């Protein structure tokens, strides 16, 4: 993707040259695939980026460019990352749901992200669990807390590695170490 040309096309589209839209999407695809690969979103199929996410990202980036008065390329970059994270979370939730099912684990629907209504006493119990987890997270060491929160928001280890200037393996290690530590604290408090 030629950044200058993409910015120019975006401006012309916003000035009414709608026929350039499709050309701009095609032009952006290699760049979006590059972001997908280098930011660790390979779990999103390439075809999905080409046939779905690219058009969504360009449309949203054009809208942001108009409303936020920012260059198209930075809007595209941020928008595409948002889309990938949200897509990654959908894939993650589906994967975890599959893990529950395939391993024959049963638990409260609201704890598995379900929306079915539950008995009042179960809701109260779950709210207590959430509050306890919130408190434990609140007291946690800042960098580790950041890693846990970002991972939960859909960031990849590679994204975190770039932001914090660390190796992706280290971010993964910190994340799992902290999840295990938080889980131990959570279990001991929940059992008391």
């Amino acid at each position: 993707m030629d950044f200058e040309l993409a910015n120019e096309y975006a401006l012309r589209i916003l000035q009414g040259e709608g026929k350039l839209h499709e050309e701009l999407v095609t032009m952006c695809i290699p760049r979006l695939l590059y972001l997908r690969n280098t930011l660790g979103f390979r779990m999103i199929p390439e075809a999905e980026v080409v046939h779905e996410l690219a058009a969504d990202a360009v449309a949203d980036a054009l809208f942001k460019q108009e409303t936020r008065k920012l260059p198209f390329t930075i809007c595209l970059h941020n928008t595409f990352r948002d889309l990938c994270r949200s897509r990654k979370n959908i894939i993650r939730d589906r994967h975890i749901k599959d893990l529950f099912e395939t391993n024959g684990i049963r638990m409260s629907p609201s704890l598995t992200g379900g929306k079915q209504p539950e008995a009042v006493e179960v809701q109260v119990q779950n709210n207590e669990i959430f509050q306890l987890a919130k408190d434990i997270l609140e007291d946690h060491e800042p960098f580790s807390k950041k890693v846990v929160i970002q991972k939960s928001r859909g960031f990849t280890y590679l994204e975190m590695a770039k932001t914090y200037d660390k190796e992706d393996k280290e971010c993964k290690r910190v994340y799992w170490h902290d999840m295990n530590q938080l889980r131990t604290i959570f279990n001991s408090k929940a059992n008391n």
Partner: protein
Amino acid sequence: MECPGKEIIQDYIDGELSPEQAKSVQSHIQSCQNCKTELNEILTFHNVINTVVSEDKCPPLDTLQDYINNGCKDDNLTKHIEFCDRCSSYAWAFQASPGELEAWQKRQELSYQEYKSKELGYDTAKETLTKLLPSRIDLLEKAWQSVLRFVLDLKTKAIENWPSFEQGPQLVGALGFDEASDPETDAASIILSTTLYISQMVNDGEIELNQQSIETVIKEVSIKLGAGKQLQKRLIETVPPLIMKSQRD
């Protein structure tokens, strides 16, 4: 099967195992009560954390922009931005000067070009090695990083100023194969390095994209790297069409 280690369980939950590995872990878990309990606890805790984190929703971009325009006075938002890289990158863009935005774009463009050039070089080098020395395709992954470093170094210093590489073992040594300097490894190193070198030069606009220019550089580089006449001839037959095809695509 023994109980899988912690890292395997983590990769299983992250969805990073191959389908075969995942299947074998899964079949173990179904027959091992300890692992089942452990997995249950981990998954439950994951969901609890995901629910808690998702309650702290990112603010709409309008709110974020107002916050920046009004001098970042909202403590709750400051706290959120501190822990949310997504919002902090939008906040940065909202308050960046045109010069900063331009510098960001230049950096992005540069790393994108570098990546593209490496990808193209990799594909062409792989295809060349597959055609010329399929029995040593295993050297591709093993040598790739050192080939890349070697070629970038070679390019920076310019081939004519580079010490003579007419002896194979020297090149093989530079690529980390000093203990295995057999003729096939030498040839594979020359194939990979020459192809990547040419591909990078074309991509960087240092030579023109035509048969004759590419041939000239192949002769120059492959001789320096120690290629025999037969290998030179085969490189000249194979590399230019591949490079021209990859650049057209």
